[in-house]
């Protein structure tokens, strides 16, 4: 049974208030990114694309964007590789040892970004590893790996051990079993996990701030710009990021809905035998 709140005026007002609190700032940011003047507050005085033009022509923004993209892609790839290996290892380790490993891999999720940033910075300087986009990729991988790990394990655990025994029985080596039985069944989920890693890495700020070298990722560029001038170019960047994010999530959502529909159909067919 579903729990239902009574519909009353106070509940309605609270709901509207909360939604407004969430969405009005977003709306204002987007609206003023199209502002013709450099004012950031009402009244709104005409539409123009000048801020988008300015932002896209700005070298710092463009460099930041490319750095961010590079970091996010590398993070997604390393997370995909290491996260899958970890999740596979744990899902095939029976009993208490498996549970212990799983806890270890998940632990970083409980760590605030601030502490992770400080810890990694002191680790890197301790080892005299010079800060660069590479250290950012390492930091981001540590940061997003637990999330990916959860996603990957759910998918891997769904594969019946008996299927792997059947494959072994048919002569498949462990490597062949992984490539031809496990991977095809979990790849969509792993890719969705990698997309998640990409998105998280792309707009990560705190950890990045600690471990970046001379370059800047896009969030850092925005931050330093904010400290210099405040004009609608910031709104334009933010809106662009928002659209990019929305597009990615939407694609992921549609994709997973399609997968779910297929699974339902298969399950139904199985029941009907």
């Amino acid at each position, binding site marked *: 049974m579903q729990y239902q709140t009574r519909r009353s005026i106070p509940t309605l007002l609270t709901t509207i208030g909360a939604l407004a609190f969430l969405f009005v700032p977003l709306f204002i940011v987007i609206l003023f990114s199209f502002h013709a003047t450099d004012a950031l507050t009402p009244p709104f005085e005409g539409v123009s694309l000048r801020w988008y033009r300015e932002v896209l022509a700005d070298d710092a923004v463009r460099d930041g964007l490319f750095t961010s993209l590079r970091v996010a892609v590398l993070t997604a790839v390393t997370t995909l590789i290491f996260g899958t290996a970890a999740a596979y290892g744990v899902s095939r380790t029976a009993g208490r040892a498996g549970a212990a490993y799983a806890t270890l891999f998940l632990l970083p999720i409980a760590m605030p970004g601030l502490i992770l940033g400080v810890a990694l910075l002191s680790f890197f300087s301790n080892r005299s590893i010079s800060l660069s986009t590479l250290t950012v990729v390492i930091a981001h991988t540590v940061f997003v790996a637990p999330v990916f790990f959860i996603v990957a394990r759910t998918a891997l655990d769904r594969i019946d051990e008996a299927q792997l025994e*059947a494959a072994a*029985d*048919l*002569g498949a080596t462990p490597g062949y079993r992984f490539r031809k039985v496990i991977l095809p069944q979990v790849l969509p989920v792993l890719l969705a996990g990698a997309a998640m890693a990409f998105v998280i890495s792309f707009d990560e700020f705190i950890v990045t701030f600690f471990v970046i070298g001379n370059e800047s990722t896009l969030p850092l560029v925005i931050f330093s710009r904010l400290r210099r001038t405040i004009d609608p170019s910031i709104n334009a960047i933010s809106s662009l990021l928002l659209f990019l994010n929305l597009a990615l999530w939407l694609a992921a959502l549609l994709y997973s809905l399609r997968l779910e529909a297929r699974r339902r159909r298969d399950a139904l067919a199985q029941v009907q035998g």
Partner: protein
Amino acid sequence: MAPTNEAEHKAFAKTQLSIQHLTHRYGDDEVLSDINLDVTEGEFITFLGPSGCGKTTTLRAIAGFITPTEGRVLLDGDDITDLPAHKRPVNMVFQQSTLFPHLDVGQNVAFGLEVAKVPKAEREKRVREALSLVKLEGFERRRATQLSGGQRQRVNLARAIVNRPKVLLLDEPLSALDLKIRLDLEVELRRVHRELGATFIYVTHDQREALALSDRIAVFNQGRIEQLDKAEVLYREPNSQFAASFVGDANVFAIDIASIGDATVTTTDGLELPLITDQAAVGPHWLVVRPEDVRFDTDTAGVEATVMDAAFRGASVTYRAECSALGASIKAEIPDEIPGTTIGRQVQVSWSGQRARLLPRQV
């Protein structure tokens, strides 16, 4: 049959699979105790036993999914006890369907051939043959989820036989199916066995299936093989009370023999029972009588009993009568309904003394 034939057969036929002193423990729990078995090339052997008696565990030791605590598994004389599953020329049909959900029927069946790098043309040919062997021609492009339970089980079978294994292990492949499909598939299995010439090891807890399919049956009980014999021998000459009551229907009476007559024995209670055997001895015994050997008469002499139930079985009628003298109820399977044997009627029970079997009984 003549014992010389049997000996000759043994001398010429090659032992293919040999299980020696197989013992397996999970923690302190001993699930297999000293299993010994020699299987001849091309033989159809059935493991028969109640749930949890170790049939699957034995198959898993042969297939290579467990390393037994003790004992050896030999294939064609080579010790394969420590060989991993993927290196054994043995294929298994599992108790549950294990088709790969991401592949279609054709790809499922071709899996083992692809692993073995069989060229595409031959692969396709063999997949077609295997599918036609299980009567599923033209099902290549179907998904596993678009099959009925019986079809799925047949694809599992095709996926195993397509590799032409030396030994095929079948773990209750028919248990999930209804009787009609089972009977059909039993016939198909026997045909496949004849056509392939491979050794089959078949697991079931259905004694009817075991009797219908096998060359020899190994009766399992609590991790041991109670008896290993041809179906007819097992049925006619069970050597334990367990084997007698597990294979086929049986009346098993606990009797105490006081004296031995010509074609009868007399119990300490003074009952005279038909029995012709050279092994009769004074003392406590189990007397095993198959239901189809039991006769009910209203006039001739026998053991007094009261008819409690009559069930029409199509080809025969199964009666159950309560016999206070033997302290047991007696089952009789009789080809035709006996006139006048209504429920509650007194009858005289007798049986063929030749067919009755005497087994030692501990007290």
